[in-house]
């Protein structure tokens, strides 16, 4: 129980601060939990690991939860994962039940968050125990699986895979690292670039560029429109007020949606919108009154919000037990761990038991703070989303710069990396490339190379990837399933499109 000594008042204050900032980020349309974590990373440079993680986990939970505020009140999802909250939340607001919808959503979020934290607590260590026996072959296959899953959820399968592989390509720039068994030679660049790119692009400037600057460029192109106009009045009251009786008969819904959220979160690279869409459609299938969904039924809000908070714990499972991020926000968290000199992977939990325990405390506490803050201060938060964007966005660019510059103790090249990837993210999305597969490819590319090449160097044959162990074969089956599933989805989509055109 040594970890209790880490639980200082500072620790709890940081979690609370993170949650509040996260809620604000999540509540402002166009800004996501990922952005909140990326922009606030520089604050953790001066903190130790425990306190840094406290802040980041608070931001994560707050950021995912805050998205429900504009979803309910303005019909604009604050984060992609609250898209389905708009389906029923906004009709409820139109009926004058805004506050009821918000509080239903907040309570569901709390349930989903705690549910997934429990799953994380029991599941991650056992998954890590399995993963500890993995050789390079299995590790490579896991990365391949992560990449196929994420590609299968892209809008266009081929472009999704292309984005992922392109991410891998960018990660290979630099030297073939000697410390991981390479020969230290440079590749994919000219001699002039060697002083800057000796060890490749740093992860954080790339992330901050894609998620921070890239998003702002997109908004700038649209002309920085203020969604929350002065004319629009936010009506909260009237109609039925909130009481816990909303949840009567919804226990199954709560558990199923939280479970689905947690499960989708575990799949590497799959974002929050997939989780809430899945939970929402399932609720519609099982509901006693499916016709009411989409017209202001609290059960829709419950399904959507419990699943997207279920995601938080789920996404941390592959991160902490395999070192593979479950979504783009946890991808940024990888950066925070690297910063503190901690290698994520199967050994992490066993070697850092105190950190693991404090993380769990932070996660549970963050969910409780989120609930209390949002439940009792909802009116104040509603006002916050009216901060004009023309004040907000310049400040975000400023924080992006700090984050990129300070990460390697003051290298201006990282700031230019930020600009380059901001532009790249902006232009790339114009031609259909997708950020999420790109990031996962970028994070995992270097490891994939080492595992792949080392496997071949030691076994000398390609068949080893199939015959190494039963686990390898199971992984191939999983890869096959995700590929078949995505091709099936693509054909189905095409049929739908053809029907629409006809």
């Amino acid at each position: 129980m040594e970890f209790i000594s880490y639980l200082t008042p500072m620790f709890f204050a940081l979690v609370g601060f993170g949650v509040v900032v996260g809620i604000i980020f999540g509540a402002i349309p166009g800004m996501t939990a990922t952005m909140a974590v990326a922009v606030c990373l520089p604050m953790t440079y001066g903190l130790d690991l425990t306190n840094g993680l406290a802040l980041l986990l608070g931001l994560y939970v707050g950021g995912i939860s805050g998205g429900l505020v504009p979803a309910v009140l303005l019909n604009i999802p604050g984060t992609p994962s609250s898209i389905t909250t708009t389906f029923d939340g906004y009709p409820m607001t139109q009926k004058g039940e805004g506050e009821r919808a918000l509080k239903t959503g907040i309570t569901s979020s709390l349930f989903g968050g705690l549910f997934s934290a429990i799953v994380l607590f029991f599941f991650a260590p056992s998954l890590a125990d399995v993963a500890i026996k993995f050789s390079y072959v299995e590790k490579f296959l896991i990365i391949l699986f992560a990449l196929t899953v994420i590609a299968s959820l892209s809008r266009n399968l081929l472009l999704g895979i292309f984005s992922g592989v392109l991410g891998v390509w960018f990660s290979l720039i630099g030297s073939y690292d000697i410390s991981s068994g390479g020969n230290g030679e440079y590749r994919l660049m000219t001699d002039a670039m060697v002083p800057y790119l000796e060890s490749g692009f740093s992860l954080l400037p790339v992330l901050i560029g894609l998620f921070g600057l890239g998003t702002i460029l997109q908004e700038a192109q649209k002309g920085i429109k203020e969604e929350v106009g002065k004319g629009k009045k936010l009506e909260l009251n009237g109609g039925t007020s909130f009481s816990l009786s909303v949840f009567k008969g919804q226990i199954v819904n709560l558990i199923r949606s939280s479970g689905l959220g947690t499960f989708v979160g575990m799949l590497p690279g799959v974002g929050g919108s997939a989780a809430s869409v899945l939970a929402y459609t399932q609720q519609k299938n099982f509901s006693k009154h499916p016709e009411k969904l989409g017209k202001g039924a609290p059960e829709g809000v419950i399904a959507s919000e419990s699943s997207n908070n279920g995601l938080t714990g789920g996404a941390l499972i592959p991160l902490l037990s395999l070192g593979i991020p479950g979504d783009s926000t946890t991808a940024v968290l990888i950066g925070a761990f690297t910063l503190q000199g901690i290698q994520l992977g199967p050994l992490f939990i066993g070697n850092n038991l105190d950190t693991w325990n404090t993380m769990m405390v932070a996660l549970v506490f963050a969910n409780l703070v989120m609930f209390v803050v949002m439940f009792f201060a909802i009116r104040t938060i509603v006002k916050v989303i009216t901060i004009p964007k023309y004040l907000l966005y310049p400040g975000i660019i400023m924080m992006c710069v700090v984050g990129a510059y300070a990460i390697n103790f003051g290298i201006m090249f990282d700031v230019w990396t930020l600009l380059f990837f901001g532009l790249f993210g902006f232009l790339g999305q114009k031609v259909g490339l997708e950020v999420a597969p790109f990031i996962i490819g970028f994070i995992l590319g270097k490891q994939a190379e080492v595992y792949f090449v080392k496997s071949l160097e030691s076994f000398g044959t390609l068949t080893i990837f199939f015959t190494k162990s039963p686990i390898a074969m199971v992984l191939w089956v999983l890869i096959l399933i995700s590929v078949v599933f995505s091709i099936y989805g693509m054909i189905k989509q095409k049929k739908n499109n053809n029907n629409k055109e006809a």
Partner: protein
Amino acid sequence: MADGNSLFKVSIDFSQSHLFFPNIIHWILLILAVLIALTSGPKLLRQMREKKKDDKQTGAPTDWVRLLGTLVLTIIYFSLMETVGDLFPNTGFGFLFTSIPFMFLLSVLFVHQPGRREFVTITLSSIISPAVAWYVLAQMFNITLP
């Protein structure tokens, strides 16, 4: 390994091993690019031809002033930051002194209905936020700033 698996046999020359994986990636990228061109190419061409005819109907128009303005300001901001920072080494003043005008100009570029009130808030925010960021990060946490 004389079991008929010679087809799958791979040997990697260590001195060239840094190029082995990148080469595979290049081939995959190339094949994917060809596949993408084959599957979505014809459709894209058709769309482009149609787009020329009714360009104005598709989606929201690009706000070129704000987009290019953001880019130009950001590039100037980044380049000046280092130059100014070199005048006051290790103080973070380069960051502080360039952030204030940058934030002010960008806010002015973004605001839609400029009025007296807006200018006051913009001025205040563009002075206070960099100052707070600079004080908290550079002074309290000793983080390196330009």
